[in-house]
């Protein structure tokens, strides 16, 4: 269920939780997200000991292992600053699933407090920073794929497109079945590779059919999946994390 969230005033400092996929595969996207936040006059604290939110194990049913890993993240954010996550699925994990995961344990209250401070990056830029973007790039037709976790778990179908709308020379194209899953689903892509492949094939076709020259997404799982498919098919469409796209066009 989409819950209405009351947004705080823009803080002086935030924590940044980079996510394991960004750390290992798309570090530039993480850095670009930090730059976007810093440009808003916010000091970004990056706890060095962060690793993974635990979601891959969680969705696979390994909740004891998840809890151990999640517990290691809980202590990284001692001050009451917002925690910015450049991913709807990791953000959704921490906001929605941390509290029940620790229910009945000594960490319950801490998990709840951390969960309340979780913001997905585009959500934070739009609703807390009220960011104004000045586009410096060339004209381009772009498709946005909002991840299912951002869209449904966090209720953030509009924040990514709202940011792209601010880019003067960018035309946001409308894809068929934009709200449909790209087929990543974490370990789903590995456990049911053929079904997942059919889904990503349809997603890439929809993006191409919409006339997009480029696509962006707010989740690196979807990015890896969709871009990997385009590349495998030797199609010209390329994709990147929305943080990189925004930073590249406005810096």
């Amino acid at each position, binding site marked *: 269920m989409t819950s209405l969230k009351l947004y705080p005033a823009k803080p002086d400092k935030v924590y940044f939780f980079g996510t394991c996929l960004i750390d290992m595969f798309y570090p530039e996207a993480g850095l670009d997200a930090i730059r976007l936040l810093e440009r808003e006059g916010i000091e970004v604290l990056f706890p060095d000991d962060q690793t993974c939110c635990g979601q891959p194990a969680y969705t696979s049913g390994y909740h004891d292992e998840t809890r151990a890993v999640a517990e290691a993240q809980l202590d990284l954010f001692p001050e009451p600053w917002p925690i910015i996550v450049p991913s709807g699925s990791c953000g959704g994990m921490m906001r929605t699933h941390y509290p029940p995961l620790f229910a009945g344990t000594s960490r319950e209250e801490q998990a709840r407090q951390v969960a309340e401070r979780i913001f997905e990056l585009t959500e934070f830029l739009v609703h807390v920073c009220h960011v104004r973007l000045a586009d410096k790039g060339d004209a381009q037709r772009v498709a946005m794929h909002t991840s299912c976790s951002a869209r449904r778990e966090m209720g953030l179908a509009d924040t990514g497109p709202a940011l792209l709308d601010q880019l003067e020379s960018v035309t946001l194209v409308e894809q068929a079945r934009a709200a449909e899953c790209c087929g990543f*689903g974490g370990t789903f892509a590995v456990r049911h*590779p053929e079904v997942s492949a059919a889904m990503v094939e349809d997603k890439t076709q929809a993006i191409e059919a919409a006339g997009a020259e480029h696509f962006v997404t707010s989740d690196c799982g979807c990015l890896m999946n969709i871009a990997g498919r385009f590349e495998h098919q030797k199609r010209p469409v390329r994709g990147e994390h929305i943080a990189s796209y925004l930073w590249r066009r406005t810096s």
Partner: protein
Amino acid sequence: MSVQTYTPQAFHRQAHDALGNPQIRANFRQAMDGLMTKRRDSFGDWDVEALRDLGASIRLRALAKLPDLLEQLEANCQANGIQVHWAQDGDEACRLIRELCEARDAKRVIKGKSMVSEEMHLNAHLEEAGIEALESDLGEYLVQLNEQTPSHIIMPAIHLNTDEISDLMHAKTGTDKTRDVDYLTAAARQQLRERFMNADVGVSGVNFAVAETGTLCLVENEGNGRMTTTVPPVHIAVTGIEKVVEHLHDVPPLYALLTRSATGQHVTTYFNMISGPRKPEEHDGPREVHLVLVDNGRSSIYQDDELLDTLRCIRCGACMNHCPVYTRVGGHTYGTTYPGPIGSILMPHLQGLEATQDLPSASSLCGACGEVCPVRIPIPDLLVRLRKEAVGEGRGNVEGAGVKRNRKEVLAWKGWQWLATHPGAWRASTSVAGKFRALTPSKLGPWTQYRTAPKPASTPLHVLVKRHRQVNRQEGES
């Protein structure tokens, strides 16, 4: 036509076959696209979220009071002249119905649509006893002619297109080969009317059983439900014990949700409320009405606060209509009575996790099912819960719990856990992975059959941030 049986154990093979079948792909894609649009457009001026809240509260209240409401339903049905029977499982329910038929020397049973009867394989059971069981819902009739099972809980023959149906009816009933749907429908009407007249017993399902009044509600468009419950001298209604609702005024909200969620209709053609057999002064209607209340695993689901939500379901099928997996593999691939997301959270309780272990994982957890569920069943959370049970980290109260636990995978997750709780080692490993990125395999099993392999970045974010801080600091100092 060859008869194919589908099993949940063969999910992967069946999915492979369905994905490679352009006809199946097209039939389902087209149908599901249409159903999604119709649902979206059907709520009109309604505050759909408030209606879903109401629907959920009605179902939760019914479950909270379930044993009391069942007793109340029984008492009120009996007072109305409806005979009530209880069955602990499908076999017992089949036996009960067979005995009711045999005691009346009934040889011909006509059936209205009932998923519970599919669940307990009633037709096969009756036929073994020499009793003909004929489906009368057009979709069910076609599926039965084709010696198949339904591929969707609302539209049983959705996997067949008009040409296939024309061929089927031609082969089995001698109709002309044609794409004229009116002709095919009229032919089925003619064929089935004769069977209604000659039927000894009508068996139907129940959409809502109202405890307060002892009323059985049936939702339908065709009129076969009314025929089944009106024409034969005996009507046997069969339903799961969870279908009870407390009040008559609980029905309109659920009915409004059901029709819109299922087919995007603002109402169905018929809403049939049965509160008893024919009275002495009446001139038609069955002389006897029976209600068979079937447990078949439901009281086990009922024990667990989280799993309980499975029983809220009103069987609208919206979760499958909106499921990107169901849309691509179709209903038969699941190999179970109930396919799609609701099947994946219900069938493990009816058949055990050993047989159904691939179903809870057959979802990308995209949440589309939960988003449209008219009674707000948290389907993705329940899928995760069953995955947890399957790998042996749940409460162990689902049959076959732990069946998917294997040493290799446990070791992998334990290794991941160790690394992710030792930040130094984690950072070292991501850096190392980056250094050797050229050596990462370009073949990563199934992933790279369809996509290129992701390569670790040469410098992980940890290191980039460190450098970035240094630059910031230098800029701050200068």
